[in-house]
Each structure stands twice: as C-alpha cells, then as structure tokens.
C-alpha cells in the first residue's frame, strides 16, 4: 500500500490530482468484485470444489478460444441493451427494473410486423421492425416514467409490474390473435420472411445486436456526458428540486430517459426475433432484463462501463455449461455467484470517500 500511496502522491504533485479521484470509481468496484469472488471461493470450498478449477473453466468457456469469445459476445448483445434500460433512468435517480417487459414486447412487435413484410425490400422492412420494436419498448418503460412524474408512482414497482403485464400480454398474443396455426405445441407468431432475418457480423458467428449494443452504449455516454440534455438529467438526478428551481424540464427528462431506455431494450427484442428465433414466442422472456439490472449496477450506471461488465457477465454465463459438466455443480451455482457479486457491489457504495488513499493531500 505504501508504494501505491507514493505513486498517488507523486501523480498529485505532477498536477494530475483529478486522475486519482477518478481512479476511485474504478478501484472500488474492482475491490468489490475481488471481495465477492473471494466469498464465492469460500462457498465453493464448502461444497468441496476447487475455486482454481472454477476460474480455469470460466476462462476456458468464456474467453479461452475463438468459439468461447463468440459464445460470450452472442450472449452479451441483449445484455448490453437490457442494461441501458436501467442505466439511463438511473442518471435521473430512477430505479427501473422492468426492462424484461420492453424486450419481450419489442420482440412481439417485430414478430407481428415481420411476418407481413415479405413484400418489402430488406432495408425498409428491417427499419420498420426496428421502429416498431423501439416504439413499443419506449412506450412501455416511458409509462413507468410518466406514472412517476405525473402521479408519483414508484417507478421501481410500476416497471416491474409492467414487465409482468408485458409477459402476460405476450403470452396472450402469441397463443391467441397472433398465433401461427402451424405452431401446434409451441405457440409462436408466423415466421419472419426470410429477407427480414438479420445475419451475423462479417467474419463472426455473432449477430449484429452486439455492434448496435456497443454503439448504443457509446451514443448514450455522449448524450449523458457531453450534451445539455445529459447535463440537465444529471442535475435532476442529483437534486430534483434544484433542477426544477433552475427551470429544467424535469418531466420531459424523466419520460424521455425512461422511454429511451425502454426503446433500447425493445431493440434487444428486435434482435432476438430477427437473428435468433425467427418468430416471437414465450422464449423471449429469457431473463435478459434482470441480468441487465445487475450489469448496470456493476457498471455504476456508466453506459461505457456497461460494455466490459456485460462481456464479463456474458462470459461467466457462457462458461456455466462447462462448469456444470466438468465440476458437477448445479446450474444454480452461477446464480449464487451473481448474487454474491451484486451484494458486494451494493455494499461497496459505503466505501466511497472513506478510503484515505484517494483523498487529495496537497491542495
């Protein structure tokens, strides 16, 4: 520690004090990850399993080969977009946990529309489906924002309940009005026209959702950090009364940011249907929305940080099969890991500002 202290003080003396204060934002979550991993390692030992083996398999299954990377990145694509549905409203101080509903309905909109687009040229048809999916997702989560702003309804509860409603609505639609009569034992919408399917990224077995997810993370970072809208949102997130006193349009910000988060989650639904499933059905409710919550919190609601965190989580999920098969551990092991990491990240909030090492000494 003394050596680190020395480096820090030297950095400060050289006039880069802000760098040290910023490094706290990286160091604290990394420390929390290490503590979480250590606790999980103890848990593995109580089960008579080796934590070293576990890490080896996570590496091999998630990152150790070209196939592992494609596996990881394929899984990361929907998670990137699901996490944005949490992180964007979070900048306004809102805790939205209903992204699953926006994903599911985005997928249903894609399936419902895509089955009737055989006439359209691919660019037009795909654009229409993207608009539909994003609009439906945006309206769904935007509703939670509007309820918050106009009626004072807790957005955490309302977005969660709306996601249940969305899944029920999806089941009703794919088993009823939108059901393809040929889908006997697994009710689905009619399959998308072949031209409406989006293929993989060039040279990879990973679909375009990954590229769009990364792009969305970058654009949203610019929106939040480099535009007047983002600045206003951060002010409102810090103190809503102060923002109102300053005359900021808090209502528009709340509804706009929740709707944008929902629209991006809806886009995840579009990619699920247009790249993986080819039609909308109950498999859309795969829990991406909930993993997205974990990712956004791990990334401390920073949309750029979401990219590596989503890839890390996806890699852990990609390796879960190998862990199951080689170590004889049940699938729930990964949920134990996620739970422990989530709790240690939440607890690490208390560490901010308390670690003397990050406090500037000079000025």
């Amino acid at each position: 520690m003394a050596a680190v202290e020395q480096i820090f003080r030297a950095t400060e003396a050289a006039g880069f004090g802000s760098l040290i204060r910023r490094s706290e934002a990286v160091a604290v979550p990394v420390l929390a990850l290490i503590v979480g991993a250590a606790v999980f390692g103890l848990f593995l030992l109580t089960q008579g399993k080796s934590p070293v083996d576990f890490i080896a398999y996570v590496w091999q299954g998630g990152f150790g080969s070209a196939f592992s990377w494609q596996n990881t990145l394929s899984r990361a694509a929907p998670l990137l977009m699901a996490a944005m549905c949490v992180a964007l409203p979070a900048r306004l101080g809102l805790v939205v946990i209903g992204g699953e509903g926006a994903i599911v309905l985005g997928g249903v909109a894609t399936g419902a529309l895509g089955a009737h687009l055989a006439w359209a040229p691919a660019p037009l048809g795909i654009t229409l489906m993207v608009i539909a999916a994003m609009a439906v997702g945006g309206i769904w989560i935007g509703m939670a924002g509007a309820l918050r702003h106009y009626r004072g309804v807790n957005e955490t509860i309302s977005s969660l309940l709306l996601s249940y409603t969305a899944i029920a609505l999806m089941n009703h639609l794919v088993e009823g009005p939108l059901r393809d009569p040929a889908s006997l034992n697994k009710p689905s919408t009619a399959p998308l026209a072949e031209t409406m399917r989006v293929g993989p990224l060039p040279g990879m077995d990973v679909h375009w959702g990954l590229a769009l997810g990364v792009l969305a993370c970058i654009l949203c970072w610019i929106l939040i950090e480099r535009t007047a809208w983002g600045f206003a949102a951060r002010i409102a997130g810090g103190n809503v009364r102060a923002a109102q006193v300053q005359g900021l349009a808090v209502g528009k910000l709340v509804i706009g940011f929740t709707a944008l988060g929902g629209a991006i989650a809806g886009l995840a639904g579009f990619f699920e249907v247009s790249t993986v499933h080819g039609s909308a059905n109950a498999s859309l409710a795969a829990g991406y929305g909930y993993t997205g919550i974990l990712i956004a919190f791990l990334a401390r609601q920073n949309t750029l940080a979401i990219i590596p965190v989503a890839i890390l989580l996806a890699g852990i999920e990609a390796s879960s099969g190998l862990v199951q098969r080689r170590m004889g551990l049940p699938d729930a092991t990964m949920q134990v890991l996620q739970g422990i990491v989530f709790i240690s990240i939440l607890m690490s909030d208390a560490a901010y500002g308390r670690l003397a090492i990050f406090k500037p000494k000079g000025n």
Partner: protein
Amino acid sequence: MTDFLSKSPRSTLSRRDLLRGSAALGGVAALSGFPGVARAQSALTVGFIYVGPRDDFGYNQSHAIGAAAVKAMEGVTVVEEENVPETIDVQKSMESMINFDGATLIFPTSFGYFDPHILTLAPKYPDVRFEHCGGLWSADKHPTNVGSYFGYIGMGQYLNGIAAGHATKTKKIGFVAAKPIPQVLLNINSFLLGARAVDPSITCQVIFTGEWSLAVKEAEATNALVDAGADVITCHVDGPKVVVETAAGRGAFVCGYHADQSALSPDKYLTGAEWNWAKVYTDMVSATMKGEAIPNFVRGGLADGFIKMSPLGPAVPEAGRAQFEAVKAEIEKGGFSVIKGPLKDNAGNVVATDGQAFLETDPALEGMAYLVEGVIGSTS
C-alpha cells in the same frame, strides 16, 4: 416414415480432432495443467441438455434417468447440462459440448430446442447427430443428421384415468395443465375417458396455469380443484412435484406424470404415466456404437416400451387393479383407441362419429383443439 440415410458417426473422428486442435490454438492448451481439463477418451461422447433442473420429479428427471442408463454403458462418456433456456443459450451449449467435450451424439430434450436452434446448428456440424425429443422431423424439410423421437403418452393418462375412476368417491377428478396445446389436450381427454370407462358419470375439471413451470400457480390450481370437490388429481406440467405434494397434503389421491412421483406420497399415489427414455436412449446409443444408423423419425407407445406405468399404489381397490391390468394388456397388443365414437366435445360438437376410432398414431390427434364432453374447462 423412417429414413435410414443418416450418416454413421464413425466418420466424425477427424473433424472432432480438428475442432479440438482449433480450440487448443485458442488458448486452451495453456490451461491443460489444470486438473480435470483433459478428459478421458472413450468411444462415444453423448450430450444431454435439459430445459429445467434434472431433479424436478418430472419431464427433465425422466430424461436424466435415461441419461443415467446411458452413463452405465461400456465405453460411453455422458455430459449433461440443466436449466438451458430455449434461446441462443442452447445453441451455444450444444456447440460447447461439440467443441470442448467432443460430443458426436446430442440429445437436446426440450420441445422448443428444435426450431430454430437445432435446425440452425445441424448444417454447421454435419458429422454430429442431433436427436430431438418432440417428433418434429420431416424428410422434406430437415437435415439428415437430425433425428426426432417421441412417445405416445396419452395411453398412460388413460390408464391413470382408470385408476382414478376406481379411487374417486366424489366422482369429480381434476387436471392441472400448463398450456392448451394438442399434446396436453389429448392427455386431459384421455384421463377423463379412462375414468369414464369405469363410471360414465365422472367429470374432470381442468385448470391451465399458462406456464410449463410455475410452482405458485400449480399449487393454487391444485387447491382450487380440491376445493371444488375433486378427489383425484393429475397434471401435465414440467415438474409435477408441487401438484403431487399439494394434492396429497389436502387428502386427495394423485396420478403421476413424466416420472415416478410415488416417493412424494406413497399412500396417495395411485399410479403414473412415465416416459421410459432409458430404453430409447440405450437403444440409440448402442446402435450408434455398432455403427448402425438411427432412424430419423422414431415414435412409440406403451407397447414399444417408450412409456411405462408406475406400480399401482395401495389405494387402488382390487376391482381397479383387475381392470387396469386388463386394459394395459389390451393396449400392449396394439390397435387400441382412446378417442372413438360416438364422442362429443364439451361444447356439443361431434368429434368422432359412431364407429370412428383414432389410433394413437393418427396424425389427426396431433392437431387436437377440443376438450371432450365431461371435461369442465375451456381451451381459450
């Protein structure tokens, strides 16, 4: 319907080695020092993938029992994965088994794994055999390295119904069902018709939970059925554990489904319709080991050993045992029909005219959209 064109898995060795080699290039080699990464080689590696937990006392457990029987075979390595959703996850799980474990025969056991997941992967791995449970393969549409198998379990629910018909005092029996799809409707109808073969005044109330696995609703539905007077309950959900325990806890008798649930309630368990995947899987694996092709389309019922019944419980009266065994023997002879005229659905429409009979193999049953007269409930 069968097709013997499928390729022998013998030809896969070189490709397997190739895949291993490329995986090693990706950095796996660096890890070979870790214990357990290098696997013992055997003649055949078989993968099993389940959509839920393998100890669910139900659908997934029935397949895991089959996998355990394969595991006991000489020269076979079995790799298993549970809780794999019907998303890109299952595609990657299959590929992971192929790339890391050298699996050349894979049993993805959930119905929803077939389209699009197996169909996407099969052309990419022509030397791997994909055997899917669900009976969806068709020669003009699907790759030849994909096979499909399924069992006619409706007859098992018919026999459940006979046991239920003898046990019920209230003449009301109940069915907890997941979704109103043809396969489930056939089970519900078979259960009631079995009971009516004992006493034509029996009615069966059905409650759909809407999900394959949703414990809270399954418990609610079971309680509601018992509250409404049903004293024998059966179900068609992925894991019947909750239904069996809730019904038995309320004092009702139960008929099992998917796997043997008698251990959950030995006194109240009458019998159960079980999959017998151990026979199907060991047959397929030994054919593969001998270099013989597995037919792409395999189906069977009670007579073929695809289905079996749990041993009758102590609550089934003597007369019930006699009728149960007699009908079972008749079914095993073949040519038995559960759906036969004159028969109406519960809205009064004729579904089978006098003299009309549907064998269990009849494709018309695969589009079933009705509940027969005597079933209280609705498909929508």
